[in-house]
C-alpha cells in the first residue's frame, strides 16, 4: 500500500476575477520510504502540492489518502493531530521561534502534543547529539549559523518520529557547503526508512533523489518512476 495516494486533486485560487488552477487533475502515488524531488518553475504548483501533502491546505476536489486513510475529510483538529504525529516540516527560512532556545525549538512539537517534560528532555538531548548541536542547546536562533539553524529545524521535524518529511527548498538560504551537509542529513533520515519529499529549484539536488516529479501549470509534466511504469504499458495521468 502506498504511503500517499492522490487522486483527481484540484486546487483553485481566485485571483481577482480569474481562477488560477494551482493543481489540476493530479494523480500521484508515493510509497513508504521513497525519496522524491518535486521540481518545476515558479508558479507550477510545487508549493501548493507540498502544503496539500502537509495538510496545511485542502483540495477543492479529489481525495488524499495518507497511510490508506482519507485525510481530506478530517476536521481541522484531527488534521492537526495527523500533522503532529505523521508529518515533519522543513522550511527554506527555517521558521524557528526567535525567543526560544535551540533545545526549546526542537521540543516544540512535543510540547504542543502534550508530552511530559521529562520525556521531552530525554528525546531533545538525544536529538542534539544526533545533529551535533550539544553545545548549542541554550543558544537562541540568532546566535546560530544558517547551517545550525536548519539542523535545529530538521531535529524539530524528526523529534516526533514521523514517517513523512516534507522539505520546502531546505538549502535555499544556505551556501553550497552547508547545503550539502543538510542534504546529507535528510538523506540519512531517508536511509533509515523515512519518506522524504523535497521541493527544490536546484537541479543538482533534485538529481540526487531516486524519483523526480516535474510540475508545470499545476500538472505533473514528468515522473521518473511513473515513466518507467508507463514504459510497461500503463498510462499515466
Amino acid at each position: 500500500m502506498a504511503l500517499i495516494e492522490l487522486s483527481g486533486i484540484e486546487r483553485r485560487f481566485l485571483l481577482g476575477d480569474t481562477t488560477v488552477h494551482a493543481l489540476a487533475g493530479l494523480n500521484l502515488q508515493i510509497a513508504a520510504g521513497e525519496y522524491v524531488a518535486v521540481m518545476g518553475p515558479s508558479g507550477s504548483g510545487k508549493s501548493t502540492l507540498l502544503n496539500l501533502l502537509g495538510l496545511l491546505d485542502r483540495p477543492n476536489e479529489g481525495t488524499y489518502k495518507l497511510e490508506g486513510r482519507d485525510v481530506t475529510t478530517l476536521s481541522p483538529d484531527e488534521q492537526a493531530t495527523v500533522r503532529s504525529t505523521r508529518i515533519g516540516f522543513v522550511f527554506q527560512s527555517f521558521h524557528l521561534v526567535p525567543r526560544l532556545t535551540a533545545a526549546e525549538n526542537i521540543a516544540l512539537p512535543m510540547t504542543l502534543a502534550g508530552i511530559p517534560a521529562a520525556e521531552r528532555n530525554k528525546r531533545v538531548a538525544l536529538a542534539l547529539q544526533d545533529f551535533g548541536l550539544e553545545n548549542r542547546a541554550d543558544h537562541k536562533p540568532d546566535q546560530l549559523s544558517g547551517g545550525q539553524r536548519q539542523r535545529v529545524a530538521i531535529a524539530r521535524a524528526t523529534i516526533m518520529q514521523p514517517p513523512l518529511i516534507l522539505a520546502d527548498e531546505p538549502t535555499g538560504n544556505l551556501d553550497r557547503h552547508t547545503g550539502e551537509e543538510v542534504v546529507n542529513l535528510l538523506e540519512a533520515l531517508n536511509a533509515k526508512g523515512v519518506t522524504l519529499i523535497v521541493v527544490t529549484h536546484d537541479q543538482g539536488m533534485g538529481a540526487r533523489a531516486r524519483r523526480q516529479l516535474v510540475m508545470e501549470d499545476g500538472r505533473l509534466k514528468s515522473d521518473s518512476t511513473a515513466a518507467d511504469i508507463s514504459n510497461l504499458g500503463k498510462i499515466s495521468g
Partner: protein
Amino acid sequence: MRLTDTLRFARDAATGYPMRTTLSVLAMSIGVAAVVILTALGDGARRYVVGQFSSLGTNLVIVLPGRSGTGGFNPANAITTTPRDLTIDDAGSLRRLPTVRRVAPLAVGTSEIAFGGKLREVMVAGSTAEFIPIRNFTVAQGQALPEEDWNRGSSVAVIGAKIREEMFGANPAIGQLVRVGDRRLRVIGVLGSTGQGLGMNTDELVIVPVSLAQAMFNSNTLFRILIEANNRDAIPGAKEQVMETLKQRHRGEEDVTVITQDAVLATFDKLLGALTLAVAGIAAISLAVAGILVMNVMLVAVTQRTGEIGLLKALGATSRSIRLAFLAEAAMLSAVGALVGYLLGQLGAFALRQFFPVFPAYPPDWAVIAGLSTALATGLIFGVMPARRAARLDPVQALMKH
C-alpha cells in the same frame, strides 16, 4: 498542550516583547490603582465623617424643643408651633428611665470671660457633671462639674484649653476666680484639647452648672437634652420612652423632637457610601479602557506573530492550543497589571495617610476585590477576540508572512 507548558509559552511570549508588555501592564495597573486610591478617598471621607459624629458621644439620643421632622430650622415650624419650654425637670425625669444610662441637660449662650484685665468672648455651655462623659470630653486639669442638685448651680466653671492658654498663660488656672458675664466663678477644671471637630470646639468653651447658665441668660428652656442609652440596641427603646415621658409631662402634646445619632450617622453613611460607589464606577471606566488596550496589544501580538502561529499549526498545534496560549498571555498581562496596580494603589493610599493623618484613606475590601476581578475579567474578555483570530489564521498564509 499541557497547562504548565501553555503558561510558560505565554510567559515567554509576553517577556519576548518587553515594550508592548510593559505598556499594557502599565495601563492595567493605572486602572486598578485608580480604583484603589479613589475608593480609599471616598471611603476615607465616609469614615472621617462617621468618626467625627461618633466623637460627639456614643449611643446618643438628643431631645430638641419644638416639633420638627428633621431638627433643622424651618420657617413654617417657627410660625405655626409655639414649643413648650424644655426644662431641667424634664431632663431630670428622664434619668429614671431603664434604658438610659446618663442624661445631661444643655443650655448654651455666648458671654464674655474676664481675668486679670483680659477679656474675651466665649461660648458658655450650662450642663451637669454627666455632660463630659456623654460627649467623651476629657478633663486635663482639676475636676469636672460637681455632682449636685441640678437646680442649685454652684459658682464654678470648667474652661477649654485655649481659654486657659489665653487668659492664664503659664500661670495656674485652677482655683482662680474669673468673671463670666456678671458672675464671679471659680475655675475648677480645664478640658483636654480636642482640636477642631464637627461638634462644638471645646477649646473655646466654658462649662458651668446648667441652672447658673439659665440664670445668666435669663431663660427657662434648655437648648438640648443629651441622653446616653445603655447600649446600641437600647437606642430605639430609649427614644420611644423619652418621647412618651416628655409627652406625658407636656400634657399629651408631642412638642419635642427626639433624634438619634444613629439616624444622622446612617444618612451620612449612606450618602458617602453612594459617593464611594460612584467614584469606583468612574475608576472602573479606566479599567475598561485598560481592557481595550490589552485587546489592542494582543491584536498587535497576533499580527506580529502571524508566522509563528502558522508554524505552530504546521507543527500540529490545535486551534484550541493556540487560543489558550493567547488567552493565557492576555490573562497574564492583566493579572500582573492588576497586581502592580494594587500595590501602587496601596502605596498611594499609604502616602495619603502619611500626608493627612486625620483622614483614614483605607481602600475598602469590596473595592479591592472588585477592582482586581474586573481587571482580570476585562483582560480575559478582551483577550478572547485576538485569541480567536490567532486560532483561525490560515496556516499557509501565516507561514508565508514569516
